[in-house]
């Protein structure tokens, strides 16, 4: 066989490989049992967002075990939660299939997920049509704006995170920023927010760089953004790219305390990945991440601290993504308790008027507000001595 044939076979293989990868992990399915409430989860267990999916899955299993210790009183029966967790391979098309399968085959009462904005968007029409409530962990504001009857979310909306950062910038007298963002709908949403703020004249966006979610070295991007001499760099990425960004900026001698990360940057994985370069970095997140420092004076703070302690003890480390999924499941359960019914329609009605203190923060759902967590639950954390701590910008 000649070289040319090899190459032809190879190019065919390139296509095959890029389409046919990812491994499906599925757990438990089917079996109608009136003593159980079936809740589906559409998660990124493989693919580029697997870091998130793994944390979500762990959090859901932990919350499920806690709930099933006592069970949920529905009418005169005590029911247990049965989770059906399916992998969407971080792929929007796959997420659509998963959502349909959860609704049509598993007859779930509600869905947790998807875990990211790109995978959530295609589910929305499916959930609306089937009238099954879903709570997403995607951060894009487009998920709940305009409000769709059955669609809710837990993380802070992009514009809310932007607001929190803007307040921090005002305190630090930061006027010129550069944005480093991952080239997918998540990073795009962040970038658009800053471009809008720039257009409105509220901040000066001097330059921005996009990078692929599989990139392994960000020196070039860091060189370009630091060359524009911004007062601060804003990073919209998840691990490991968030850590690589920190490393590359440090290489360019850009001070760590002038770098601001979105909630997605990750907790321990970020610090581990960036090493010493993470020191001083700021991130907008719930205070749950500084769990050790929380003084539990209010029930809300107590819930956050408890979740941090329990998760850290069970899995030997904490993830900033975990509380988002934990709250999604707890919100569904709270709605079932409140309405006294596990019927999808009743869950939707109860969710829409629910106030809840969760692990990630406080939720005030209403017919016009389907999430996420309220701005007051978010704060600006800083890496001090290798751990996320409360900062002077809180």
């Amino acid at each position, binding site marked *: 066989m000649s070289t040319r044939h090899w190459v032809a076979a190879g190019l065919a*293989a390139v296509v095959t490989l890029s389409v046919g990868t990812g491994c499906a992990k599925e757990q438990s399915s089917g079996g109608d049992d009136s003593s159980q409430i079936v809740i589906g989860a559409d998660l990124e267990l*493989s693919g580029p967002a*697997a870091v998130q999916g793994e944390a979500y899955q762990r959090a859901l299993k932990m919350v499920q075990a806690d709930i099933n210790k006592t069970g949920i009183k529905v009418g005169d029966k005590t029911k247990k939660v049965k989770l059906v967790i399916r992998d969407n391979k971080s792929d929007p098309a796959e997420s659509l299939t998963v959502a349909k399968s959860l609704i049509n085959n598993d007859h779930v009462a509600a869905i947790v997920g998807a875990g990211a904005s790109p995978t959530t968007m295609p589910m929305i029409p499916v959930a609306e049509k089937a009238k099954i409530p879903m709570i997403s962990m995607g951060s894009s504001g487009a998920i709940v704006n305009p409000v769709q009857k059955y669609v809710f979310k837990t993380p802070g909306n992009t514009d809310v995170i932007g607001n929190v950062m803007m307040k921090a910038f005002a305190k630090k007298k930061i006027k010129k920023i550069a944005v480093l963002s991952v080239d997918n709908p998540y990073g795009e949403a962040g970038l658009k927010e800053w471009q809008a703020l720039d257009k409105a004249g509220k901040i000066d966006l001097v330059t921005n760089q996009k990078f692929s979610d599989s990139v392994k070295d960000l020196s070039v991007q860091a060189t370009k953004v630091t060359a524009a001499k911004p007062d601060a760099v804003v990073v919209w990425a998840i691990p490991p790219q968030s850590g690589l960004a920190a490393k590359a900026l440090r290489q360019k001698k850009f001070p760590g305390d002038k770098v601001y990360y979105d909630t997605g940057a990750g907790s321990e994985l970020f610090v581990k990945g960036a090493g010493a370069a993470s020191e001083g970095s700021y991130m907008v997140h719930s205070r749950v991440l500084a769990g050790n420092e929380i003084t539990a004076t209010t029930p809300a703070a107590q819930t956050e601290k408890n979740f941090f302690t329990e998760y850290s003890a069970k899995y030997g480390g904490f993830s900033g993504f975990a509380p988002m999924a934990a709250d999604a499941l707890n919100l569904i359960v709270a709605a079932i308790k409140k309405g006294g019914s596990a019927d999808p329609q009743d869950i939707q009605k109860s969710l829409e008027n629910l106030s809840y203190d969760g692990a990630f923060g406080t939720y005030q759902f209403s017919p016009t507000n389907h999430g996420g967590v309220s701005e007051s639950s978010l704060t600006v954390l800083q890496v001090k001595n290798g751990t996320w701590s409360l900062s002077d910008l809180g």
Partner: protein
Amino acid sequence: MSELLQYVVTGLTTGSAYALVGLGIALIAQVTGVINFAQGQFVMLAGLLFAVLQEHRVPTVLAALAALAVTVLVGLALERLVLPRQAAGRTDQAIMLTIGASIVIEGIAFVTIGTEPKFARPFTAGEALRFGGASMDRQYLWVIGIAALVMLAVWLVLTHTRTGWAMRATAMDPDAARLSGISPSRMSLLVFLAAAALGAIGGIVLAPLQSPDASVGIGLGLKGFAAAVIGGLDRPAGAVAGGLAVGVVEALASGYLPSSQSGFADGIAYAVLLVALIARPTGLLRRVTGERV
């Protein structure tokens, strides 16, 4: 100017990773005629194992040796399982099998090690190196140094030892080689062993820089494939040149493309591949005239 230098430095360093993968692919292609699409998985497997062992406080040298040993075993298993399955002369079947093996290896890594990235410590601590306005992580010195040593060793073996001659003879004409007492099957086993070891070494030196997770193998394998093809596919030196070229072009693309287009940099390796195939179908380092037989 200092920016251009930085882009080139970054390009050469990331390119050295592609070169190592490409070298493995080219070696196997040269001797067996098979393109090993699981080559990137050797890099992933060794890097991941090395990082996991380090996280469990295994000393660096031990962790590296263990990761190397496991990866080489996987390479041997792959060769024994995949190559004898092909009908005589049908390398395309074996190529498909390597793709299957690649997905299996990734799947096993997903299930056993998990999907989170793992982090290894750099071999030597310290601030980044600086020269003429450019900076470079210290670990890249190890990458470049070890890659250079390994490439030199491969070249010496191929040109100065009986085994090397036998390998090259097999590459040129398996039947004639068999008539002179060389076992093509043994040569193919040897070359898979060498390629797995190459991939493993690459994975280990890159682990502190690239925080490997179970999914990195396919991307690296494809970039390595591009490097090998650009370099002429059956020329080890060409694969190295091809890898460095792909790295530099990628870095320059992300450096000089306007911000709104900066997302395209990742695909540029394949654009280079297409251009190279059209302009120089036989590879960068090969004379265009005269097909070698």
